[in-house]
């Protein structure tokens, strides 16, 4: 049976390399690029190197070094690209936020972002050290989903911020619990589907029963659909809803290989989005903005946010204006968070934007290849799910600010201002590193008897 597996593990010779040296040198590059960007902003704006450039570089370097040491000691076979990409994106994000802070001296976001990044790296290290085997998470599937639901429902009892009820505010401190729910849901989906994919695949095979599926099979699909629509209606957060549903559909497809489920999922998502988009004014407005980004100009009210964002991208052109020399602050509200990509597009140009997209693509690709290399279905699904989160998120927000799809409030992973998002992304990378260590280690360390590795052959 093993000989007929679709996904053979990589050749053993490759798996013996730890590649920690590669990771360290890439980390040095990532830190240097970030520090160079920081200095470049200072030179462009004030004609002088920012006085705290050395401190900034040392801080980022120290964080990277600590993370690297944790990986080197506790996950020595992990993929060497994941950590440097995360450090580079986080460093670039800090540079962009620092650069936008220069336009709004009264409202500085970079120091807080730096603190959140530190916290993110600390949690990254904690996950690497505390979680020895990712399969331990499989047992917490229902705890995860309960916690996720709790996190998602809490903000409903807090006042809406900018039209969306996704914030919890305690004193001057606020965070988005929905961000953490992503990871918990990915864990739950992976665990649930790893255990039940057989049943789902089995019923899906009988085409005549697909027309009247039993409640037991359809149950989870409908539950997740209701969950995402509920999020959409109660919290007016189209992006998170889209992300949850996309995540579930991808994992369902990967677990069962049935396109029928994808069709059902897309149909349900489409119906939900259509109904809510037509009824809910907040979501409906977003769709109108997307269809007619210049409507407010024609109405004589000046350019809207999306129009300003498109202007910023256009001003960047092929090569960009150079860091610190653009006018993306014209976007105004949310220029540092949801619209951070517009600053990257204007000041780094199409070239820089493509590089950033490719960094994300590389991160996602490493996640997927980790999934391919794993043998246990939970690990495969977990890696796929974790890699899909940034993939979907980048598409939803980048497509939104560039007018490809309706704009939904969502943070660009690592780049955007937002503490919850940065911390969450660091945890995602930590889990991916943990999983990839298992995938690349010479002996599967979770091979002790008793571990549940059900029907590996049928996983695609």
């Amino acid at each position, binding site marked *: 049976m093993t000989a007929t597996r679709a*996904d053979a593990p990589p050749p053993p010779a490759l798996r013996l390399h730890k590649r920690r040296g590669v990771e360290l040198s890439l980390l040095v590059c990532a830190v240097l690029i970030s520090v160079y960007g920081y200095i470049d902003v200072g030179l462009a704006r004030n004609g002088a190197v920012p006085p705290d450039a050395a401190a900034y570089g040392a801080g980022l370097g120290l964080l990277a070094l600590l993370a690297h040491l944790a990986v080197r000691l506790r996950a020595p076979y992990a993929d060497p690209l994941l950590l440097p990409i995360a450090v580079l994106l986080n460093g670039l994000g800090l540079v962009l936020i620092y650069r936008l802070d220069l336009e709004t001296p009264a409202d500085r976001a970079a120091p807080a972002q730096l603190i959140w990044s530190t916290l993110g790296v600390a949690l990254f290290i904690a996950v690497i050290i505390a979680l020895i085997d990712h399969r331990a998470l499989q047992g917490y599937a229902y705890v995860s989903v309960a916690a996720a639901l709790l996190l998602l429902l809490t903000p409903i009892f807090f006042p809406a911020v900018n039209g969306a009820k996704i914030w919890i505010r305690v004193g001057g401190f606020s965070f988005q619990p929905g961000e953490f729910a992503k990871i918990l849901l990915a864990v739950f989906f992976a665990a649930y589907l790893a255990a039940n994919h057989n049943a789902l695949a089995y019923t899906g095979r009988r085409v005549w029963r697909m027309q009247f599926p039993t409640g037991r099979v359809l149950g989870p699909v409908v539950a997740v659909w209701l969950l995402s629509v509920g999020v959409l209606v109660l919290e007016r957060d189209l992006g998170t809803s889209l992300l949850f549903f996309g995540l579930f559909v*991808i994992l369902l*497809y*990967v677990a069962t290989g049935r396109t029928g489920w994808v069709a059902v999922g897309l149909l349900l998502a489409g119906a939900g989005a259509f109904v809510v988009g037509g009824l809910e004014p907040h979501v409906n407005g977003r769709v109108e903005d997307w269809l007619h980004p*210049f409507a407010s*100009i024609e109405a004589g009210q*000046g*350019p809207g946010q999306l*129009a300003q964002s*498109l*202007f910023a*991208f*256009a*001003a*960047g*052109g*092929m090569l960009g*204006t*150079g860091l610190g*020399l653009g*006018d993306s602050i*014209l976007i105004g509200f949310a220029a540092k968070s949801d619209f951070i990509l517009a600053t990257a*597009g204007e000041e780094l*140009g*199409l070239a820089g*934007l*493509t590089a950033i*997209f490719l960094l*994300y*693509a590389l991160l*996602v*690709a490493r996640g*997927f290849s980790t*999934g*391919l290399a794993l043998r246990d279905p939970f690990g*495969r699904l977990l890696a*796929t799910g974790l*890699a*899909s989160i940034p*993939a*979907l998120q*980048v*598409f939803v927000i*980048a*497509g939104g600010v*560039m*007018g*490809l799809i309706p704009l939904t409030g969502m943070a660009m992973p690592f780049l955007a201002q937002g503490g919850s998002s940065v911390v969450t992304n660091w945890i995602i990378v930590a889990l991916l590193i943990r999983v990839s260590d298992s995938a690349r280690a010479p002996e599967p360390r979770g091979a002790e008897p008793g571990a549940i590795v059900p029907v590996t052959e049928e996983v*695609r």
Partner: protein
Amino acid sequence: MRHAAALCLLLLAALLVNAARVQVLDAPSLDKNPANRRTVMARYAEPRGDILVDGRPVTGSRDTGQQLRHERTYTEGPLYAPVTGHASQTYGTTLLESTEDPVLSGASPLLTLFPFWHDLSRTRAPGGDVVTTIREPLQRLAYDGLAGRRGAVAAIEPSSGRILALVSSPSYDPGLLSGTGSEVTGAWARLNAAPDKPMLNRAIRQTYPPGSTFKIVTAAAAMDAGIVTDVDAPTDAPEPYVLPGTRTVLPNEATGCDNASLAYAIRWSCNTVLAQLGVKVGLAGMLDAVARFGFNDGSLRIPTAVARSNFDTELTVDRLALSAIGQYDTTATPLQMAMVAAAVANGGEIAYPHLVERTTTSDGDPVTQHVRRTYQHAMRPPTALRLQQLMVDVVEGGSGSNAAIPGARIGGKTGTAQHGVGNVGTPYAWFIGWAQAEGSGRPAIAVAVVVEDASAKREDISGAGSAAPIARSVMEAALLDEARDEARHLAPRKGTVPSIRP
């Protein structure tokens, strides 16, 4: 799982294609969107170049730190407003601020050594400077002479075409329009609603009936056409003159015009003689002659556009007679009448009038330099020589005697222009003239003054009364200027410049 990876690849491709669409394909149209503030922000990001008079900037820049960062300031706004115009964030640019905008704003490709450097580096050259031909003392004397009355002064150096003074009164401070906000819109509304139209550039953008000063043009036409060969010979003109085809009688303000010579008619401004000469020259001949002086030419740029001075192209004979003495539909800008005086002073040739001597980069390196060229040959040189004498006679023993300056050869012609329905408007007093220092090979200045004067009821006396003194002081200053230049040229040591007091 491979399908999921393929899906992600598809999403990435969609993002990249869309990025290319927004940033490259659609970029030009997005950049040009009027709601996109980047173009206008870049325009005001650097201080604007300056406009120079006598080597000193009369403009400046104020850094506001606002979005449209640098605002225009003017050292003496009202004095130079007819030259500079305004450069406003809200209301755009006019006059030199408008025509020289590429240099002043730094957008001109001539400001850089390498043509595409600023396109590649996405920077803008610092704004260049505009060096004008205006002479500060002349401008100031003319402005003070008008003393807030409605009127204008235009002065030209006949040999070069350099515009030495361009004054409009009453004037305004263009600095009031710099920037954005309610003060600016308020000032704009107030200036536009003001009854005496302070933003109107009367020297080049307003035309007036030239009255008797136009007789110089008709006289030149008659001599060039061979109708008058001897200026001292009687012209057969009856007094009073009945306009051909009508029973309207054209009177004279002066006496002794019956059968007078052209010399007498110019000296005392006989309507009858010049009206009859205009009829004798004929419509075609008159149109030909006025066109050589610049009438009916709407394309004159100094580089600011100058309003078209008019002489009707279709006229009955009686109206031709009236048009020939600067009445009926004949109108002229003050600059046009200064060009008439300059043509006489310069031997018939009109050098192209211009306000900008050269433009430079912010470092003072030349960008453009005015090259002297001929605008028109208004009349044959012998005609110009005879007219010079006739105009000198006007000042030395005729209607323009209060323009005389001892030690210089002054030619002039007075005029009064009635206007309004039934001539009820306050009449405009005219004086055109030129001055040449004794022993100098060329005239120093040609000037035209028009001023609204309630006391200007009587022909000629009035023109001489309120307009001629202004012209005199401006001409005097020009002669002094010339003498000082010459002295500096002969004795370049400082401190030995002989002081010539008028």
